[in-house]
């Protein structure tokens, strides 16, 4: 099987991740912070170590302000609903995943906030100038993705961050597709809230993720309960991370995530992108007639700019086949897993002109080889031959 759906979740996970979870489950999986016995303290140490590794990955000096969540959706909801107040204005973009668009749309529909959804140009990037122009005195939050899960384009987060900081608003970045793929610097990029998932490029299991809460942001808790420590207090503690972490954490999952992050740090996050771009070029080069496909702007950036400004994710269509048909053929007859449809980002497909049928997304991961890309290209050649 050739798995080219790493943007949905990385698969398989590295052997080390499986082993770390297995070892942890057998030896130390007690309830962190809920006891003084050494298994509980080991579990707590593991959780805190994972926070420290994430802090290193995101160049962030306050590991205690990294809060674990179920996934990126959970983190985004926590951030959006935890910082916005009635009357706030929010700026977002058409490139957003539903995990950003839907909570915002709901708040706007309920009259809690007003919302500006920025269009993007043919380069599939948000223009920082558009962000600046969209500001109103009520703008409280700018919520954008760092890498679109549909177009694969990297957004100018740093330039946008500076504008947002100047205007004294908060920047929420959806790093679902970028964490573990591109270097992220919380401070330099002026990011106030960073939502990430553990099960994609960070190579951890599903059920892990988190929200990095910068010092300018204060997120109201929406889940209160047991945290271990300070049990006598009648209310939930206000200090991070427990402020946003009620209930027993997913220690098993975090044990796996920790190993995934270690791997990324060992390999060096800056080495990942060049590798993915090279693989995309191999794929495109192995296609007999790349011009037959609709590349949604990616063909030139891959062939002429070495994939500059994008990650190892490309969305395309083959005229004559509906996206779901192409994906079904690749799966059923070539054992190649890709993702067809709208990728939970209907506005992005509206921008591309591919709504409502969507497109086929190919996304690479840590284990993808040149051989995989050539085999995939051969399958596309065979299919396009009968179209």
């Amino acid at each position, binding site marked *: 099987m050739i798995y080219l759906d790493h943007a949905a979740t990385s698969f398989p996970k590295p052997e080390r991740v499986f082993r770390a979870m297995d070892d942890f489950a057998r030896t130390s999986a007690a309830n962190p912070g809920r006891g003084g016995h050494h298994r509980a303290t080991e579990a707590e140490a593991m959780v805190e170590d994972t926070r420290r590794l994430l802090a290193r990955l995101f160049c962030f000096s306050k590991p205690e302000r990294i809060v674990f969540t179920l996934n990126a959706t959970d983190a985004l909801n926590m951030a959006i609903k935890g910082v916005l107040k009635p009357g706030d204005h929010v700026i977002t973009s058409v490139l957003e995943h539903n995990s950003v668009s839907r909570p915002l749309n709901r708040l706007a529909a309920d009259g809690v906030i007003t919302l500006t959804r920025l269009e993007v140009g043919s380069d599939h990037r948000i223009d920082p100038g558009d962000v600046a122009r969209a500001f109103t005195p009520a703008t409280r939050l700018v919520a954008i993705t760092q890498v679109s899960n549909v177009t694969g384009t990297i957004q100018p987060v740093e330039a946008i961050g500076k504008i947002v900081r100047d205007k004294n608003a908060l920047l929420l970045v959806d790093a679902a597709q970028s964490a573990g793929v591109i270097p992220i610097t919380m401070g330099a990029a002026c990011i106030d809230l960073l939502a990430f998932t553990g099960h994609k490029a960070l190579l951890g299991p599903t059920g892990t993720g988190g929200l990095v809460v910068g010092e300018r942001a204060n997120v109201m808790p929406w889940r209160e309960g047991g945290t271990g420590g300070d049990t006598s207090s009648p209310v939930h503690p206000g200090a991070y991370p427990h402020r946003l972490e009620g209930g027993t954490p997913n220690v098993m999952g975090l044990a796996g995530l920790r190993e995934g992050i270690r791997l990324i740090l060992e390999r060096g996050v800056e080495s990942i992108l060049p590798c993915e771009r090279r693989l995309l070029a191999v794929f495109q080069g192995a296609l007999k007639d790349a011009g037959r496909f609709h590349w949604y702007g990616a063909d030139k950036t891959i062939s002429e700019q070495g994939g500059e400004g994008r990650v190892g994710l490309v969305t395309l269509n083959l005229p004559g086949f509906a996206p779901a048909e192409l994906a079904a053929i690749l799966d059923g007859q070539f054992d190649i897993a890709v993702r067809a449809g709208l990728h939970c980002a209907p506005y992005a497909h509206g921008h591309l002109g591919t709504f409502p049928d969507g497109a086929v997304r190919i996304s690479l991961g840590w284990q993808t080889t040149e051989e995989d890309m050539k085999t995939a290209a051969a399958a596309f050649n065979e299919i396009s031959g009968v*179209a």
Partner: protein
Amino acid sequence: MLAFQLGETVMMKSKDNLNSAEVPHRYSRQVLFAGIGAEGQVALSASSVALVGCGALGTFQASLLVRAGVGSVRLIDRDFVEESNLQRQILFDEQDVRELLPKAVAAERKLRQVNSLVKVEGVVADVNPSTIDRLLAGADLILDATDNFEARFLLNDYSVKHSIPWVYGACVGAEGLTFAILPRETPCLRCVFESAPAAGVSPTCDTAGVIGPVVGCVASLQVSEALKILAGHRALVNRRITRIDLWGNRLACVDLPPRNPECACCGRRDFSYLEGAMGSEATTLCGRNSIQINRRDGAKLDLAALASRLAPLAKLEGNRFLLKIAVDEYQLTVFPDGRAVISGTTDPGVAKSIYARYVGV
């Protein structure tokens, strides 16, 4: 014939404490029949039958059951009346087609006029693992009027699990097949057919056609068994499988295989269809208006064979990777691994039904 000429003055035989006066006169001819009698009639009127499907077999069965005075008849079907149904689905007429009525609603409306003493309930719903408990609750007996094996295996699981008898019935062309399943007594459907026939090779009424008479025959045989069971004559139930071929002039009762102690359903009581672990799987595709059906039986499809079967019926287009079938407002795209993408609906039940009709399950 002489007995029938006695007409309105017929005396009903009373057994035990039954008062013949309690049996409505409209059932007099049926009560005269010794196999039913007043006692049987009272038992019928206290019974509840669920009909799964209200197409050709279902409309015949329902008409017979409601006229016979079964106390409560529930008709379950999720389809709408179409012009091509009228040739054999005896409860429907052109007005129903014009009104785009759901079959269950149109049938209920007709049957209420036939017999106001019977509680007739038409339910527009898809019978699947998540709805079956609610839809079949309270039934003393289930009649099969479905058009596919997946649904029948589901009924079989339900029947065996809850010990409720059901009567299998199927027809296509001029041929039909029926037998009754009495849980714990007779072989269940999976003792007879361990698994569904191979995908795409079995004829269906939508691909090979069907004539009205064979539907009437099979439905009548099914209802006869139902009447025996409900009127208290379980011992008289036909323990063999009846096979008819009206065009080839063959009518046969064949022995069923014995109950299989290793049968997944009635032997091991592994109700995998009821638990939703078997059968096809419908996935709403990300994107608008299409459902993907995945088979879980590993069956492969011969696209060329399917294309030649469907050629007279639908607009086809394809290549070695897929076959596109345009039917009504839907498009089915089927693949050699048995999966299909059905465009034109967001309802998994509709998608499954179209798949069953044109590809077969």
